[in-house]
């Protein structure tokens, strides 16, 4: 390895990056946009508030209490529906996935149940709903839970089975905090993989690699300078993502030595994979397609966006074979949960993988043409 040669390559790469304004723009703004978009989507995941349409056919003070009780749970924003119109038609016309109908004799039945202790007195609350909607099941489950509590309260007896929640973490974490390390890992992976594949196929097609093969630069110098360059870009984009995360979402993440270590390992792994891909796939377009084929499973199956628990069992097992999983979980362990032991074990796994890929990448890099 020749540091002067590595440095020369690095300087040229940085100059090209600085002069390619669009590349610079996308390197810094794309991860920020990801953080803003997904952060906004997931920011209030812990305090979900659904829209709920309520049609009160009884129009009494007692029936109005139901809507108030539902609003007080904090889970619903209530929209009142005119009792004169057809609820099904209303749902269709207004693209509403659920309308809750309080029946006409609600107050009378309520009085009969409470004051006369009539066991046959009851009311039926109707859900007019769209079964094709993905969120309607969650709404109905919450409504069932609220009405079960109301029934239990009306019975006059305290609950026998009660529940208590104890978090294993010293403080409560927000979903956005869980999400940001995953986005950092993913953004670094994407930039390293595509940066390597695009630059190398372009240089090969332009004949620059052929010219470089007649200079003393070695494959190790070349890959190391690629890794250093991608690391610098990763530091820039990670810094931008963290600044936005702190400023916009007020996250509380631990920034320590694990962060640069996992970024380095992320870069090593995916620059190495990019080098191997460049050897296997010669044309720029095919190389991009191959990079996509690697990137998408990593992006969606390694837990960057969603917790693995949300996936079927076999996919969870598959996720553990993906290198990005160990970067995601290692970063979360260090940045969110302050779990150094997990960070250490995951860094060892991804470090071993990165070393293997790096060596194969050097062996796969070939500048001489034909055999």
């Amino acid at each position, binding site marked *: 390895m020749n540091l002067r040669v590595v440095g020369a390559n690095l300087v040229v790469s940085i100059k090209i990056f600085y002069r390619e304004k669009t590349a610079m723009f996308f390197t810094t703004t794309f991860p920020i946009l990801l953080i803003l978009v997904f952060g906004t989507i997931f920011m209030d995941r812990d305090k979900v508030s659904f829209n709920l349409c309520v049609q009160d056919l009884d129009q009494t003070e007692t029936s109005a209490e139901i809507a108030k009780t539902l609003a007080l749970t904090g889970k619903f924003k209530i929209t009142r529906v005119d009792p004169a119109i057809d609820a099904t038609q209303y749902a269709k016309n207004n693209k509403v996935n659920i309308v809750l109908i309080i029946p006409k004799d609600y107050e009378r039945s309520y009085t009969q149940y409470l004051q006369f202790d009539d066991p046959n007195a009851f009311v039926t609350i109707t859900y007019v709903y769209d079964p094709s909607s993905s969120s309607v099941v969650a709404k109905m489950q919450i409504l069932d839970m609220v009405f079960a509590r109301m029934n239990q309260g009306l019975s006059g007896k305290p609950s026998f089975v009660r529940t208590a929640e104890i978090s294993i973490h010293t403080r409560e974490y927000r979903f956005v905090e869980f999400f940001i390390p995953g986005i950092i890992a993913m953004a670094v992976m994407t930039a390293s993989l595509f940066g390597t594949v695009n630059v190398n196929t372009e240089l090969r097609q332009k004949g620059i690699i052929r*010219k470089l093969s007649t200079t003393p630069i070695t494959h190790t110098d070349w890959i190391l300078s690629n890794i250093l360059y991608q690391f610098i870009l990763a530091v820039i984009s990670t810094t931008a993502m963290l600044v936005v995360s702190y400023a916009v979402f007020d996250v509380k993440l631990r920034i320590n030595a694990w962060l640069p270590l996992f970024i380095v390992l992320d870069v090593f792994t995916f620059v190495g994979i990019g080098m191997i891909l460049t050897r296997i796939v010669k044309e720029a377009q095919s190389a991009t397609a191959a990079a996509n084929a690697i990137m998408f499973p990593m992006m969606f199956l390694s837990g960057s966006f969603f917790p693995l628990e949300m996936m079927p069992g076999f996919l969870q097992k598959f996720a553990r074979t993906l290198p990005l999983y160990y970067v995601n979980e290692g970063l979360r362990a260090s940045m969110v949960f302050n779990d150094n032991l997990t960070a250490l074990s995951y860094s060892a796994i991804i470090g071993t993988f990165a070393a293997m890929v790096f060596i194969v990448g050097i062996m796969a890099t070939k500048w001489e043409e034909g055999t």
Partner: protein
Amino acid sequence: MTTEVEHAIEVENLKKLYGNLVAVDDISFNVRQGEVFAFLGPNGAGKTTTVEIVDTIRRPTSGKVRVLGMDVRKEKRDIVPRIGVLPQGFSSFDRITVRETMQYYSRLFCLRNADIDGLMDLVNLKDKAKEQYMKLSGGLKQRLGIAIALVNNPEVVFLDEPTTGLDPRARREVWEVLLGLKKEGKTVFLTTHYMEEAELLADTVAIISRGKIIAMDSPAQLIESNADNLVLTLHPVDEKAFEVVWKMGFEPVLNNHKNINVRVERTDDIRKILNALKDAGASLLSMDVRKPNLEQVFLKLTGEALNDGASGEKGVE
């Protein structure tokens, strides 16, 4: 340590196959120290494959290739710092300036005192030092490529079709640079399909066709030993001249413009014809003598025109 060897390049029974396609077919040649050696041939003849094997870009299928006494297969790392290469279709980093590109390549060779200004002067690029590569014209890009090939002050310079695709003016500018290299006494291995380029620059020309060297000598000697007779064209005042030449034993041909073409073997024959015409009182309006060139040599040896490709046959450069 630099070792003096008589031949800068030695190629023995070189063969290169791409699958079943024979790109270079058992060729042998030597390039002396300090000479300009040109590979002349049409597209697809095997010029680039050969030069890329010799300058270490490609690996041979079989045969021995030594550069400065070193084996290209085993001693690439020792050869590379001592050679300079302008590959075919040279290109560089679009957004890097001329000076930065020169500095970049000098750093790859770990040179602290590369004479970048001197090289830019040599190729007449000093006023473009701050221009980005993407903004240079084709001729300027080629000149930069030559300057880069010289950045490590190489003992042998490989220039693969340095003027292809350039307009005549740009081509002449590149030739001037190459003539400068020749004056400096550099060993230059040049490939070209322009016969005037080979004729102007080369000490030795190897004519290659379909992977084989079919003739190799100095341009003058190639022409001398392979070209057809000189062609004397006479524009006579009357028909008497035709009869005079005919009676001398030559085979004059009268063309549509009433000019007489006569093939002669030696320049002495021209003098004899002119004397005979004078003695017979056959006046001439004008006359000219066409000298054969490498184009005609190539046509004679291969049956193909030099710039038409290999008779439409698919070849590998």
